[in-house]
């Protein structure tokens, strides 16, 4: 029973992080209908930037964190401006190919810069974050992940529900021509969505890095794990992304705990195929409101 609960806690924590990184992915998809295969690389870039600043640059953690977020935002912005903007209005396959190319290029670059080794962050979380409930302990890393995750989720939830820019982003996702006719800066929305996506990717990259250590291959493959998450949640639903993330996180930790560790990485994809066959637009995908 303790083992079960422990796994559940771990699963929820990891899943929350998956959910956050999937949120960035969904954001790009919603705003510009671009499916971003380079999401894992954005995630890894954030984690490594943070790592470089803290471990090699010797910056204090909070400063490094803020700097990383800013840098990731700018990175996302630049990627959109340089690579995605020329493709606005081009067929789907070209956009998909472009992000696959981006992912390959970024991964190569990062491997050249940091190599394929596993690094660990210096331990900066206070021991007091470690929680105990009876027989279960939640290590500080997980508590930290939970806090950061919940905080940013709430933040983005509020952003989309109440802020003007958030509403504009949703309007562009909904009906681009109409948004354009009202003077919504559509290109700015695209750039903004890439910026925010890169930013949340960096957050999840850092948190995952705290949990597992950072390695280019590992982190960029997390980017692919976003797919089962968003498919489970529905490609266009941000809440769905979070719930899907938690489900996948639980699924993974339970498979890892009870079945086998090697199956752990594949099980989300098996579930993905099954979900696709049964409920093609995800569990929480938007019901298409169609009027003729």
């Amino acid at each position, binding site marked *: 029973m303790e083992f079960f609960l422990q796994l559940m806690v771990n699963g929820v924590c990891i899943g929350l992080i998956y959910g956050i990184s999937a949120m960035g992915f969904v954001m790009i998809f919603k705003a510009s209908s671009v499916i971003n295969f380079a999401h894992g690389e954005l995630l890894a870039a954030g984690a490594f930037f943070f790592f470089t600043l803290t471990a090699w640059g010797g910056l204090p953690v909070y400063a490094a964190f803020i700097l990383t977020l800013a840098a990731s935002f700018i990175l996302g912005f630049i990627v959109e401006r340089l690579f995605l903007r020329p493709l606005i209005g081009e067929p*789907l396959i070209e956009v998909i190919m472009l992000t696959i190319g981006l992912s390959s*290029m970024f991964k190569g670059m*990062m491997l050249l810069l940091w190599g394929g080794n596993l690094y660990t962050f210096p331990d900066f979380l206070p021991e007091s974050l470690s929680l105990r409930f009876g027989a279960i302990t939640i290590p500080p890393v997980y508590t930290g992940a939970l806090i950061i995750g919940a905080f940013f989720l709430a933040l983005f939830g509020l952003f989309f529900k109440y802020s003007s820019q958030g509403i504009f982003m949703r309007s562009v996702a909904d009906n681009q021509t109409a948004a354009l006719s009202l003077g919504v800066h559509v290109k700015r929305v695209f750039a903004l969505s890439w910026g925010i996506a890169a930013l949340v990717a960096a957050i999840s990259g850092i948190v995952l890095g705290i949990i597992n250590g950072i390695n280019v291959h590992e982190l960029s493959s997390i980017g*692919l794990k976003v797919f089962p998450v968003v498919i489970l949640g529905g490609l266009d639903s941000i809440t769905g992304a979070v719930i899907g993330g938690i489900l996948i996180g639980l699924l993974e930790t339970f498979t890892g705990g009870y079945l086998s560790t090697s199956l752990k990485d594949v099980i989300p994809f098996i579930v993905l*195929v099954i979900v696709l066959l049964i409920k093609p637009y995800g569990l929480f995908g938007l019901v298409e409101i169609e009027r003729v």
Partner: protein
Amino acid sequence: MRRPTFHPCGNFKERYEEELKVFSTDFGRLWSAVGVAILFAVVPFVSGPYTLYILNMVGIASIAAVGLNILIGFTGQISLGHGAFLGVGAYSAAILSTNLNMPCWISVPSAALITAIVGMIFGVPSVRLKGLYLTIATLAGQFIIEYLLVHWEGLTRGTMGITLPPASLLGIDVAGDRNFFFLIYVSLGLTVWTAVNLIRTKFGRAFIAIRDNDRAAEGMGIPVFRYKLLSFAVSSFYAGFAGGLWAYYMVSVTSEPFNLLLSVEYIAMVIIGGLGSIAGSIYGAVFITLLNEGLRLGTDLLMNMNLFPEVGLNIAPIRELVFGLAIILFVLFEPKGIAEVWRIIRSSFRLWPFSY
């Protein structure tokens, strides 16, 4: 004898039969014949083993790339699992020839058939899914197959890999680069011939209709799902065939090469070569294989020069970087690929000096 035809200065087709012709002029037919003759009668005897090795790799890659182009370029279904299908073909050939002692002329086509069936299984989600969702389903296929190749140890012997018996055809041992050259290029010729003719038929037109607008295609009475599945089957058949040849050529198979990067490599071939062009797939295969070799030679050279002794230069990251860059540049600047560049060059010659 009828008069030989040349390219007219423009598009003057008056009948549908003319659109269907493989060679629009006798000149084209003649040059293709000469090309094939040189390929088989001269090339294998003048090139050294290294050149032959590269040619063989190009040949194998071309077969698989033609298959992928049928799926992506003609049917418009983006697959990210082609590398894994190649693996299925390679493993099937290996298992059939070791466990069941099949000769290679049976095992390679059977491997291709098995791969076609596997491909159809992963094509089933295409019933209800389009575009993005399907791409993601094939991505899942890639990972699941990769996992099975490593962990289904009873069948695939896990990370150990399988060593194949030497291939023999009609009692002759196919060994060495030159013999394989003939085997591979005859197969390539057959597959290209089939593909070109498949595209000209009802099936090919249905594929193209589905690519351009699947709803309209359905409205015109094309059973979309059946044709999508067929396209998946054909595409993975080609992948399986290429995989089988690869297994025999490489003598032993392990699961490592058949990863996502290989799938991306094949997509790169198709994009760079030219979507919706059979010849384009071959250009793409040539380009990527040469790029691969060039990068390998380049990094080797840098390593030997010992310019940065402390930096362990590794080919993999550079390869990924250059691949990514090549894909990006082609998508941004010439999304129709080398085939289009070639077409523009040709037509500007044809129309010279009045290029407009």
